[in-house]
């Protein structure tokens, strides 16, 4: 292989700044998407365990649609197709006035996609709880809502913490797809450094290391959270 290695490009102006800005966008996209994914995913997950058949149906359709379509295709649909389906004025607003259109689109897309996956984990967490827990809640006079908020969900979250952690990691990695609609996150910035310097292997090695550092830090933090929250009688995280 004929290749001139030169690691110093990574620390030159402006390429170093690009990497830093790429890290910030990656963290921002993944972080914001995770907030949406966690909240929406919990709602959908809960709705799939309710008795109401309409809410259960909505939850099931949501999960199957968002889980079943490749993320790249969803990104393209959100960015190029959805604005065309809106009324003309609203469509123009989305295309021109929306602040940071590519960032907002990426966050919504990644958030709603990950929400479908979080929902399945929340549902399985809730379904793994024994009926005694709900009965105990009812016995002390909690409403169905209070039962979910104060008893079933907190316990379910503790059980599903390990799979939620890997979902969180996947969100960081999936955020790299946002470059296809023009978000200049870490992968995009590495490409840009490659385009300007033609030292792509160095740039992508740096990106690889940075992604690893991010994901390993997340793993370390989540492991701490897991240790802190673990249900004493439930060491393995399964009942």
């Amino acid at each position, binding site marked *: 292989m004929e290749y001139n290695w030169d690691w110093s490009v990574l620390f030159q102006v402006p390429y170093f700044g690009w990497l830093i800005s790429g890290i910030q966008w990656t963290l921002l996209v993944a972080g914001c998407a995770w907030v949406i994914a966690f909240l929406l995913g919990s709602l959908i997950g809960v709705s799939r365990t309710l008795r109401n058949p309409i809410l259960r149906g909505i939850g099931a359709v949501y999960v199957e649609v968002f889980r079943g379509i490749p993320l790249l295709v969803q990104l393209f649909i959100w960015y190029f197709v959805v604005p065309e389906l809106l009324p003309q004025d609203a469509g123009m607003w989305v295309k021109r006035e929306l602040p940071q259109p590519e960032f907002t689109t990426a966050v919504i897309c990644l958030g709603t996609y990950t929400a479908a996956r979080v929902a399945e984990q929340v549902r399985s967490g809730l379904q793994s709880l024994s009926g005694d827990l709900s009965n105990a809640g009812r016995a002390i006079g909690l409403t169905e809502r209070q039962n979910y908020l104060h008893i079933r969900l907190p316990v379910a979250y503790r059980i599903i913490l390990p799979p939620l952690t890997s979902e969180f990691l996947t969100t960081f990695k999936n955020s790299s797809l946002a470059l296809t609609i023009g978000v200049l996150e870490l992968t995009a910035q590495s490409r840009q450094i490659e*385009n300007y310097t033609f030292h792509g292997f160095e740039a992508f090695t740096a990106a690889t290391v940075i992604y690893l550092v991010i994901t390993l830090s997340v793993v370390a933090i989540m492991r701490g959270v897991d240790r802190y929250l673990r249900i004493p009688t439930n060491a393995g995280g399964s009942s």
Partner: protein
Amino acid sequence: MRFNRLQIGFLTVALAMIPLGNAFAQYSSQVLARIAEDGVINVGHRESSVPFAYIGDDGEPIGFSIDLCLNIVEAVEDEIGMDVEINWVAVNPQTRIPLMANGTIDLECGSTTNKLSRQEQVDYAYTTFITGTKILTKRDSGINSVDDLAGKAIALAQGTTNERAIKAAIEQRNISDVSIQSVRDHSEGFLALETDRVDAYSTDDVLLFGLIDKARNPDDYAVVGEFLSYDPYALMVPKDDSDYRLLVNRTLVGLFSSGEFHEIYDKWFEPLSIPMSSMLQTAVDTQTFPE
């Protein structure tokens, strides 16, 4: 000295392998040696660079650069004295340099500008087209030059020379409030323009005409402004293999001098009403080196 049958067998095999080894060693070019060994040439091509290299109606890559490359593949076959199979590898502006640098492709047929900084990683054959950056916009947008971009949105393909030319022009002329949308390829840039997400898209002049030609309403679009960069296109070849590059260049000179180059040019550019520029004509004449 006496040999048993097994020893004679080994000796025969060992002797038989000597000429085989020599057969590969006769190419000082690594690329040619590899092609002769595998019987396969890996040709990188673009997918939406009309009319240089794009996917035709039957799903195969076609275009001006592709036709030039097919002539080169023939020359390679003549050189090594065997038929080779073409393995088409789709490339885009981001992947073409690394794939050439790491040896995945032996030849790139697209619309790649020959730049000195790129020559640190790859080599180029002789120039086969000359163009420059211009702006594509809708006729009713009111944009007539790069100065009119103030307050407007423009899409630029990541990793192209045009991206840098436009950004440099905006900076140089102090044009304020230009919103830049980064897109992946020409087709996505055109889609952004078509759906009014941006007011303009910019790439090489000739590619813009190609995009207009494939548009649903070609009359709605116009190419405006002066050239913002000088972009000589050339086929890309691996670095540090001058014997292979010589073969490629000799083939091109053959096409230049026989007039076949002009036939190929007319085949692809006449439908777009782009006659050969005097600049390219001069380049062809000066690059027609004597044998």
